[in-house]
């Protein structure tokens, strides 16, 4: 049997695999530690604080410019969703009353049996 052609890159690929395994193990252990959790959640808390401060400043600025805030736009979005759902229901009712139905696709029969196991 012929010898497979040795691949000069195989050594580097093997090294990469080993590095990945090691990085996942060492990194994983580090990330499981309480210190890491504390650090990452500290960073998250700082981000949230900045976000809250930005929201407050933007809310004041938008109110001063007589424009709706994000929460007001969200309320409008919720109401719009309610209206959309109502429109869909009304449309379905009107179509049913007018006798308009979508063309039915041919439905398959439902009598299939599993193949006999040999």
């Amino acid at each position, binding site marked *: 049997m012929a010898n497979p*052609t040795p691949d000069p890159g195989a050594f580097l690929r093997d090294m990469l695999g080993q590095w990945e395994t090691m990085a996942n193990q060492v990194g994983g252990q580090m990330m499981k530690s*309480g210190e890491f*959790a504390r650090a990452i959640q500290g960073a998250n*808390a700082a981000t949230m604080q900045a976000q809250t401060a930005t929201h407050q400043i933007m809310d004041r600025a938008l109110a001063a410019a007589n424009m709706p805030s994000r929460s007001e736009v969200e309320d409008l979005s919720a109401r719009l969703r309610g209206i959309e759902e109502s429109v869909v229901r009304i449309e379905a009712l009107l179509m049913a009353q007018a006798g308009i139905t979508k063309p039915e696709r041919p439905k398959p029969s439902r009598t299939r049996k599993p193949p006999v196991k040999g």
Partner: protein
Amino acid sequence: MTEAAAPDVFDQARALFDRAIQRNFKGLGYFASPAPVLGASPKDLLIQRGTMNLYHYRPMTDDVYRVPLLLVMATTNRGYIFDMVPGQSLVEYLLRAGYDVFMLDWTAPRADEKTLTLADYVTDFLPTAIERVQAETGEQDFSLVGYCFGGVLSLLWAALHPDAPMKNLVCFTTPVDFSQMEMFQSWSDKRFFDVDRLVDTFGNCPADYLYSAFDMLKPGAKIAGNIRLLDNLWNDEFVKSFRMFDRWATDTLPLAGEYFRETTKRLMWDNALHSGTMDVAGRPVDLATITAPFLHVTAEHDHIVPSAASAPLIEMIGSTDKEQVTMKGGHVSLVAGGNAIKRLWPKLIDWLGDRST
């Protein structure tokens, strides 16, 4: 003979040179070409309600199994993991095997959907989808197949409806003992993680936050993956597969704020599902009330839901016809890709076939 087949230095150099050239050409093509089209199996959208989508895939056979099958996707990711590209699609595989396939899939919850709770998913979205499947097929019986947290939603619904005509329940890599998800436990450590503040600040839990959490489970994977991509740019199949999975993995969904708050507190902190204290909208959840035939498939190298987190499920289910299978692979390669085509998919249709008539 061995001498004749011995590698020639010139041939090796030529092969390396060819690959280097192809890497350059195809590398340019990689950045210039659009991402592959995923999830393109023909289907009809039956319900679209905010974050909830219910699809019906068009049957590929004239005669299907009597019992329809509803796939329930995890709320953190897109359902096209089940329908990547032709030839690598679980949906297509099921359709060709004669199943009538539906999928409950999710889109990013809108800002005004931040108030959705676990109860909305379990007692509204899931039963609404099931009712529509029943109406569409004219069959009361159905099979539920849940992936990861889609499995948790399916379990919660099934436990609350022991008399429902659920013919079969299949879970893929579904956690029940959340105390064993060590990395997630560490990050959601209640001493440092203020879930109330996160939800109150952002409304919905941002997708970036969840993506980072998944990404950090394997800190070396991204760098190694990109180096492997560079090394294999000459290989079209490798590049195609890499792009599919990379696109899916980065396409993480945000989670509805109240739902995230509740799952963090009840499942991650209280481990309520495993300790038997779980309730949904005040109704107690007892997995022992589930008596339908049950299959649970877990992955040997699952870094997201380790075996210790998913293994206790089989004992908690009340069914007499139940089976637990652990297959080679990881959390994603269990359900999609070459590994899944060889292992999970044939097992699934083999198990379901006898139970879907």
